């Protein structure tokens, strides 16, 4: 059976000077999945995501998003993708409504659809009534909500979310999680990174664990448990085992002195 791929990476490598941020990644992500990218800080997740959007040029290797090469057709890729970076910088001098208007226009969302979607997202994320305040006065969580709304406005085929739940209150985090599940049913592919392993375990169809620029393991949670030889473990234990960072007891004891 032919499976449509949302993303393919072949020997994808990125060097920043002498630092190899991404080291020969081979990865395929099927359409309509929620795919979790896990890894410690500096493992190359954000760089990998940026290469998906053509924001960073690979040193070598290839990456295709919905069959398009982001370096050859960045505009085509970006039309299909909704992206939330790790620490989204918004335009502080705009109000939330003006910012979302701007984003919608950049993606060519029609007028009526734009108004309707902005209103419904603002209401869902409890920003209604605050939409005419300048973003400079928004809290981190409120900014994150605006960034997420911005990524969803144009109904993307792929969502690339770098730590999307950062700073969100529990209600908004639940909305995002449920929304991702709902969008998956509609065929949307979500690729997201997170450090909250419980969330990854709960909502991801497949998971890749990255470490020092490489993908150590990729598969379903069950496959990861089997590969690591820890069938009765949770994702946190599997993650720490696979990345070799499981022995933190000595560090904790040292810090507690």
């Amino acid at each position, binding site marked *: 059976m032919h499976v449509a791929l949302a993303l393919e990476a072949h020997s994808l490598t990125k060097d920043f000077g002498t630092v190899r941020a991404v080291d020969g990644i081979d990865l395929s992500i099927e359409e309509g999945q929620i795919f979790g990218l896990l890894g410690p800080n500096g493992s190359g997740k954000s760089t990998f995501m*940026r290469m998906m*959007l*053509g*924001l*960073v*040029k690979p040193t070598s290797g290839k990456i295709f998003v919905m069959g398009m090469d982001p370096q050859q057709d*960045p*505009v*085509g890729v*970006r*039309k299909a*993708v909704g*992206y939330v*970076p790790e620490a*989204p*910088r*918004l*335009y502080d*001098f*705009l*109000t939330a*409504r*003006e910012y979302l*208007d*701007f*984003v*919608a*226009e*950049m*993606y*060519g969302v029609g*007028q009526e659809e*734009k*108004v309707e979607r*902005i*209103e419904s997202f603002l209401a869902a994320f409890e920003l*209604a*009534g*605050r*939409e*005419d*305040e*300048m973003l*400079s*006065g928004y809290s981190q969580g409120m900014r994150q909500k605006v960034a997420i709304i*911005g990524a969803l406005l144009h109904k993307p085929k792929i969502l690339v979310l770098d730590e999307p739940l950062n700073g969100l209150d529990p209600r908004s985090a639940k909305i995002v999680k449920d929304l991702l599940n709902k969008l998956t049913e509609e065929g949307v592919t979500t690729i997201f990174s997170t450090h909250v392993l419980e969330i990854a375990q709960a909502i991801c169809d497949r998971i890749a664990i990255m470490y020092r620029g490489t993908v150590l393991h990729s598969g379903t949670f069950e496959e990861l448990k089997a590969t690591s030889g820890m069938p009765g473990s949770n994702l946190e234990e599997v993650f720490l085992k696979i990345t070799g960072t499981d022995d933190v007891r000595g560090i904790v004891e040292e810090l507690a002195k």
Partner: protein
Amino acid sequence: MNPAKISTLMRVFLLAQLRVRGGGTGEGVFRRPSSLGLIYSAVFVLSFAFIYFVTGVVPPEDLASIEAIGMQILALVPLIVFVFMVTYGIFFVIGEASQHMTSEAVNYMPVTAGEYVIASTVSTAFMHLWILTGALGVSLGFALRFGLLAGWAASAILSILFMVIGGTVAEIIRAIVNRVSSSFSKRGGRAAIFSRAVLIVVVLVLSQAIFNPNILFMVISSFAPQALALWFVPLMWPSIIVASVAAGDAFGAVVFSALTLAFGMILIYVGVFFRSKYWVPLPATIRIGGGSGKPAKYQGRGFLGALGFSAQEGAIMRKDLKALLRRREMVRFWAMPIVMIVPLVATVWTAGGDVKNLYGIAAMMSLIGSGFFGMFIASSAIGQEGKGIWRIFTSPVSSASILKAKIALPLMLTIPVAALFPLGISAFLNFSQRASFAIFLVTLLGAVVCVLVGAYFGLKYPDLSENMRGNFVTGTGILLSFAVCGGLCALLTSPFAVYAVFQEAALAAGLNYCAAAAITAAAGVALIGALSVLTIRKSHVLSMMVSE
């Protein structure tokens, strides 16, 4: 008060200010506080040597008037230092740097208002000690040459004191503006943004006027002789003390010194009081519009669509226009035409009746007013995005479209300025139609050229770092923009300049008015074409900007 804490704060503030200048955190020799001592010493020695040498070659018949000027300078050094510090404080309030200098962290730390005010004042004073060492070097040159050493010593002590007093006044202004801005922002929305912008322009214009040499000279020559008549004005006390010391009036010197010291202490107390009472550590929320759930404004193709811009290009241009009007650190760019011509207006008044001089000054005013305005806006177009640039580059918009929008807005703002400026100036100075058209042509072409030059260097040397910085373009970028704009504008002006200055020779060589206009137009169009091609070729760097 904890001296160790004050010292640590001072060091941090000093580093922050050094890096405001440098636009980065590198370890260059001029970014080390220790290097500043050497620089200040060099400024002192050079200014002293220059004045001492120059006054040594003055003809004997002029010595008396030079000595009088020396005495006036001695008396006014503390005032000059004070005015500088206060003006710098106002600039500081306007600039983005204040956000970093008064960064949130200090608000949460166990630092008293007194410790903060003293550390901030002293670090600011140390950062600008060059004005003091320069002024004292100059005054020492006069003092040694004319035997005014006692007066110089008094002037030096008072200058140091008034530098600190000026820094304290700047702290008071910052606290007041912080509170006013916060209160305004909470209530005013758009009106607050507009009022703040107008206030900034007024402050900048006033600052320009204050530091215009013509006005400063007028002040120097008129104030000092009247110092005694103004004995009740604290700012006059240093002049009175210096005059008293020079005249051997010990009583007057002691009384006014005591008053000055008391004045300084009171101001420091007021500074601490204002900081503790009025400082608002968190930015206020600014609401724009009524929050009535009204639909988004932009419908259909609109004005920009009718001009041939796509929806995305229009969105970028509208967003950039809002940035220009709302961002405090951007206001100075559109204030540029007003601010930069202030010194030239003062010069026009003193230029005398030679109409050729006036043509030159009028052309310069027009070009500076509109050309540099366009250059600054265009060169900051990319850099102003800062780290928010991901938003544009992850949107489905080509580099060419981004570049088109980023150049079109500066052009649309600059062209009307470039058209109105020369017409207004020509009408004001009652120029002939031919002269008016010449200035109009040169200004219009020059302004478009400046926009393209700014866009090119803004694209090549953008500063997206969001460090403490001024221009959204690197130092190299802004210097090259200035140099190239200056050179190309001189080139554009040269046919008319040659025609006006060497009219007979020019006519003999076939350069009449029409020929000068034709050459200027042809050169302008050629330059615009060449710069457009260069800038478009450079647009590929946009696609890789985020990764860098």
